């Protein structure tokens, strides 16, 4: 329990590495020893979503080889965790050996906030932040993993913070991977709604747990409301940790 294997999604690896760094530092501050398999590449979600199941199987096999011996795997992403937990066993429906391996790993993988609260039993990570924050419920974290109480507990335990309600917090922000640029006009309409709700909430900062949503909402904010802030929950907790004396 005090040794976890870190699974870093491609979005974080390439575009948002500071979230990975924040995750590492935060876990270490809580007494957790973190290691990172350098041979990890990608969970295979892009191929799965595009219908390329054979190719997704290759990604899955590599993942299971890399992470197969780990007792606990933690990732600052919900969609990648869902891919491993739910789609890997399905992908190997007709292959009993790989299916068994997939089910084993599926039982040991956690989303970041889920790990902190449900496994580590930590809610107060020692952070403080004066201001109003709102929380966007990413689809895979909320509906896929049924994780919603955990991130809010972590947020509310932050000293000085006020978690304000966000209208339609559980409505999709419009990312959906390929959807965002293949059906860009629908996606734009959805992210615009999300941002309008953020602006209306009175929050100084929007928090979330999914890097894809961060790129999407963050990308729209950057272009249209550059002064409005958005952060991944891991970054928020790590950055606002009070320094130990």
């Amino acid at each position, binding site marked *: 329990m005090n040794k976890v294997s870190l699974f870093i999604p491609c979005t974080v690896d390439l575009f948002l590495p500071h979230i990975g760094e924040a995750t590492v530092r935060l876990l270490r501050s809580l007494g957790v020893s*973190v290691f990172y398999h350098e041979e990890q590449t990608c969970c295979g979600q892009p191929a799965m979503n595009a219908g390329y199941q054979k190719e997704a199987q290759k990604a899955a096999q590599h993942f299971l080889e890399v992470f197969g011996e780990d007792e606990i795997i933690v990732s600052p992403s919900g969609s990648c965790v869902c891919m491993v937990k739910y789609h890997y066993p399905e992908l190997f429906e007709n292959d009993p050996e790989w299916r068994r391996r997939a089910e084993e790993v599926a039982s040991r993988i956690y989303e970041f906030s889920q790990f902190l609260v449900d496994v580590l039993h930590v809610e107060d990570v020692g952070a403080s932040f004066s201001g109003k924050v709102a929380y966007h419920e990413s689809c895979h974290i909320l509906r896929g993993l049924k994780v919603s109480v955990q991130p809010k507990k972590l947020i509310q335990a932050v000293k000085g913070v006020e978690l304000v309600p966000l209208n339609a917090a559980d409505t*999709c922000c419009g990312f959906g991977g390929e959807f965002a640029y293949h059906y860009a006009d629908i996606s734009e309409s*959805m992210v615009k709604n999300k941002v309008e709700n953020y602006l209306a909430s009175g929050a100084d900062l929007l928090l979330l747990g999914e890097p894809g949503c961060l790129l999407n909402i963050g990308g729209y904010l950057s272009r249209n409301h550059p002064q409005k802030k958005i952060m991944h929950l891991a970054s928020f907790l790590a950055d606002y940790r009070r320094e130990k004396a």
Partner: protein
Amino acid sequence: MEPRTEKFKELVARELHNPLSQKFLKVMPPIQNMKRSIGLSTFPDIEAAQAYGAAIRQEAIARLPELLEHFEKNALANGAQVFWARDAQEANEYILKLAKERGVKYVTKGKSMVTEETGLNEVLSQNGIEPWETDLGEFIAQQLNLPPFHIVGPAINVPVEEVRDIFMAKANLKEPTLDPVELGYAARLFLRDKFHHVQMGITGVNMAVAETGTIINVENEGNIRYTKASPRTQVSVMSIEKVVPTMKDALHLIRLLCRNCTGQKLSAYVSMDSGPKKKDEIDGPEELFIVIVDNGRTKIYQDLKARQVLRCIRCAACLNICPVYGQIGGYAYGWAYSGPMGQVLNPLLLGLEKTQDLYRATTLCAACKSVCPAGIDHPSLFLYYRHKDVTVDPYFGGKARPAQEIRFFKAWAWAIKRPWLWNLGIKMARPFINKNAREGIIRQIKGSFADWFRQRDLPAMAENTFHERWKNLKKEA
């Protein structure tokens, strides 16, 4: 109804800029969702109630042939007549024959989506028999020659001005009015005359109960009850999946249907027919014809994964919760069935080639799955159909993917097991991706990702990926 599913992107672009559609979509779905929540709260355990509904529908589909035979046996024993139609043509021709044999000049129709699918109305009118849609929304859509905007409220988005105009032209509205209630009453008067003198009525079927041979219809307006009371001949059309095992099962599904659809505990009228009227009754049909329609469903049934779409009870909870439907409305889906249920059903009935966009225009957010009382897993079906395109599956009518995409994923799969190659690929891609980056922000990339950048920026790809930063992080420990 002629499918226009291939025009999806064009229709989406039009609807996103249609102020009337957008006005409606901002207001109605949230209200419906709220009503649904309130309605469901009358169950002691909402999740159990929904799961029970899903179990009923799963059983009904698993036992489909046996239940259909059982239903038919009991319906025949009740004095009904049963006709089996393999496809749209057989169903339409049979119903047309019944109408012609009885010298019928017009029929009143209760809402029936399967007859929209088969195009029955067109066949009747082409043969000199006028089909009057009597559900108010269907009536308006029919008069305006519009496809349905929502499967339950097909003309709910139409502005009152248009309703007034068409009623003045076609429904005897004498005094112009913009009051929906006055307009409704005008339709009432106009259609009342049709109900009074109708000789043959056509309804759909919400549920066909195998245990007793009973057909059940659920409505608020009363037009279906009229269609079952006034004429001498009643024709009720059901697609094969409408059957449920027992009356008790039907009751539970009706509770779920009403709450999920409009938030009501029960719709105003639920009518259950077990055969035609008895000899000594003065109203009700002397003849009851039940038409059981296949039209592509036995084919769907062959596939264990695809057949779950047959569980759908047409409650429209998925439409109301879907954030994509909430931006584009029903017209964009191009056929009788819209929203997530249309996105899983239309591809199976029309083939994947004609419906390429329907199962791709989704973020897989799973809101639909989370509200479905029939336990349908829409997101997994969207992935399934995409897979059928990749394998160009002939059974589903899969369409081959672009060669460039196939090559990309082959290379991607090759690299994914070879971390050195994977990371090299990332290194080599960086200068291209970051070509237009200024101060760590990319505002434009040409090519397939270009549309992202119309309204959104992207952070530049980091100078050092997490993978590269790990070396330092490892040391920090």
